[in-house]
């Protein structure tokens, strides 16, 4: 299935490609953050397009919390090998040594240590001056005001009051040593656009997005998949085989599944059209209060 050259998807694609080329041309050491999710898959696909016939002129970085679904890791390794890309996997070893897990430390602290701190460590270690992220403006309120080139101070903080005006498609790529830019090529895509594009371009995604019978525990109103033996059950909890899929992917103990029988891309898109909850609903970390994403971003979260 090919996309009409004048359609909104083609316009979004061209805009993303343009952003990626600007970053590659203007920065000395960019990196693409890869989270293995559907948005990352689209971003990677766009990067393959943007620099064709060259490979993307930057490495791919995965900040591994050690709690990703096993299927995600398998998918990651397979796709990197098939595309022939350089991948850096970074784990916050201090966090691991301190025994920080989503079960023992609560989702907020765990996410801060294993994701935010892990990301900062990796950016510092390799001295990246720009990092692509797959965030979209439609995901969450504080993201709606995010720039496409988002400036971060030398200690990776985001100051919402002090963002650079961004006009036309003239992106200001100038930073001092230690400062960096987070670049968001998918800013103007919506969740539906992402699915339609995956369908149109037949982009590979992690099978967890498709409905299948999976071992599920109900916890805190969410459907959590028991992905390995580290998940310990409470006395009243029991594992059931349920037909579910995931709308968003992250660390398995923090990612809720939805009951669904959508096992193909068209079925997923169809389900999207009647969906009544946003995809981040499935993530525990956003729930605490409505300003929580803004707080995390200020601290350096993507």
């Amino acid at each position: 299935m090919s996309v009409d050259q004048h359609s909104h998807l083609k316009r979004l694609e061209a805009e993303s490609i343009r952003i990626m080329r600007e970053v590659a041309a203007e920065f000395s050491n960019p990196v693409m953050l890869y989270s293995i999710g559907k948005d990352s898959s689209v971003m990677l696909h766009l990067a393959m397009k943007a620099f064709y016939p060259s490979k993307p002129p930057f490495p791919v970085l995965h900040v591994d919390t050690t709690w990703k679904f096993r299927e995600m890791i398998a998918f990651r390794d397979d796709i990197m090998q098939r595309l022939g890309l350089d991948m850096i996997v970074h784990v916050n070893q201090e966090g691991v040594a301190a025994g920080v897990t989503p079960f023992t430390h609560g989702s907020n602290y765990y996410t801060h240590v294993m994701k935010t701190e892990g990301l900062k460590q990796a950016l510092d270690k390799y001295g990246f001056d720009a990092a692509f992220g797959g965030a979209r403006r439609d995901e969450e309120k504080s993201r709606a005001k995010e720039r496409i080139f988002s400036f971060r101070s030398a200690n990776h903080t985001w100051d919402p009051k002090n963002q650079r005006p961004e006009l036309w498609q003239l992106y200001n790529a100038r930073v001092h040593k230690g400062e960096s830019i987070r670049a968001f090529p998918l800013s103007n895509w919506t969740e539906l656009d992402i699915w339609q594009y995956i369908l149109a371009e037949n982009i590979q995604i992690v099978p967890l997005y498709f409905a299948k019978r999976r071992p599920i525990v109900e916890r805190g109103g969410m459907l959590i998949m028991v992905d390995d033996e580290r998940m310990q059950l409470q006395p009243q909890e029991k594992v059931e085989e349920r037909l579910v899929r995931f709308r968003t992917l992250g660390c398995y103990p923090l990612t809720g599944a939805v009951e669904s029988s959508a096992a193909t891309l068209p079925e997923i898109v169809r389900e999207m059209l009647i969906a009544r909850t946003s995809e981040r609903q499935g993530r525990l970390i956003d729930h605490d209060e409505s300003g929580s994403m803004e707080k995390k971003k200020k601290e350096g979260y993507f």
Partner: protein
Amino acid sequence: MNQVPVARESADFQRYIAEQERKSLLRFLTCGSVDDGKSTLIGRLLYETKMIFEDHFSALERDSRKHGTTGEEVDLALLLDGLEAEREQGITIDVAYRFFTTDKRKFIVADTPGHEQYTRNMATGASTSDLAVLLVDARHGIVTQTRRHAFIVSLLGIRHIVLAVNKIDLVDFDQARFAAIREAFQQLAADFGFASIVSIPLSARYGDNVAEVSPRTPWYHGPSLLDHLQRVDVGDDLARRPFRMCVQWVNRPDLNFRGFAGTVASGSLRPGDEIVVARSGTRSRVERIVTFDGDLDIAEAGTAVTLTLADEIDASRGDVFAKSDDRPEVIDQFAAHLVWMHEDPMLPGRPYLLKCGTRTVSAQVTEIRHKIDVNSFQHLAAKELRLNEVGEVHLGLSEAIAIEPYRQHRETGAFVLIDRFSNATVGAGMVTHGLRRATNVHWQAIDVTREARAQLKHQMAKVAWFTGLSGSGKSTIANIVEKKLHALGKHTFILDGDNVRHGLNRDLGFTDADRVENVRRVAEVARLMTDAGLIVLVSFISPFKAERQLARDLMAAGEFAEVFVDTPIETCEARDSKGLYAKARAGQIRNFTGIDSPYERPEAPEIHIRSNEEALEHAADRVVAWILGRDSADDWVI
């Protein structure tokens, strides 16, 4: 790995997907003054197009009780005020982008603040929009800010306007009231050359005429807002304009492939077409239009492509490709509208970085023709542009680039200015026209060169630029240096801050704008003197990094040294040889460097003199050594 097969599709679904892929995109912005109900209107559009998810809606109900202004009802405006601080203050202070979709179109909405000082954000939202929805409160009609909004959107080249006369419920759906507002706006907008103005009476809060035509305005026969937005033709005529493409990146995977990556800004291109590199005039033919999805037979406006050419030509990032029969002007001086976006005012003569297309060059405003009162549209004289001010200015560039009027070519006619030190984006500009004098005033070729003149004097022409606080000892050291050089038979001249202000710069005061011009003139004079073969000692407080950089940029590498006379302000004040500090402290002198005007310390001066720690004679010897090209002061002091 096997993708789950795309299967079990019904014919309906196939049709739906095909429709989605034909869907067009409309980007628009909404503007209005505080309390006109912009955020409520967008919240209403999201609500009517079923874009609000249940979890968002329940967060909204929670927030409405906490921050809402609509009593018991859900406050739709809270959907848009994303940042905590804004929610607490109850005003939108940054541009928020929102998305909704209908069967026919996908929409990207820039919600821009109406608050007095946020012209900057409106210009930002307008720069990527094709249409503007201007809100007015039916009770208040056209207000000052409506004029401002109409002006800014026209400045940014928006040609399609919707005048949303909101809160029509609060004037009892009064037809005459609506007609009067519509009439007043049409008069106001007559000079702006909008291609379409559609006025709609509506109530964002209750939904009248937003998605559906309301029975409460039976006298209104136009479309609902959503209906109009779905159908309006914003006349994207980029395809019919001359071909332009800015080169973003040169693609060289191996020795056999060299492609120029960019997005076609306007026009179209086919393999075999002749293209020309605007800046150099070099020509070649398009061999292939390469994309990941296969080579294209035609590259149209908006398409991201990689071009291979028949010849190995010299082109790189920043170049503009055109067709040989319609090339952009390549100029280094032009007139533009400039919107200032930073707390530090724009000062003529100060060097900034200018980014246009994919090219970044050094630029300065050579003249403010006038600033424009955005409320009355009056032209006013100005020496600087402050935050949110708009002016018509002349700019000069460090080198000629392909640049064109914004009305004809957005991509080669829009630019941003970036501060060279803080890297902040400080201004946004739209080219109105090129200035002929740049192309007609050619440099006179001179046979006796500056090197020849300097050689005759057995010296190298150089500039030692002494900077430091008043009373730091700049002139004292410069004098010692000059005496030593004179004794060695060198031809020198001292340009002293105080002396120059009696003559050349006697029209200038001590405001920031005047200080910049003061330094610029002296830097140019110093440059002329080195052309004459002289060694020039400039003794100037020169408090701003940007102007010292300007002076440096005028000279070749190695010909300019920054001499930082670093004396603590306490010492300078204790000396106070001219009694100026006392006056400044007493408030008799204003804008005095170090007291109520900043001094920006040099970061890496060639010569750093800590006058409390080093004998002035020794310091002077170090300067002389640099001028004579010796490694150290000991080399020449025999």
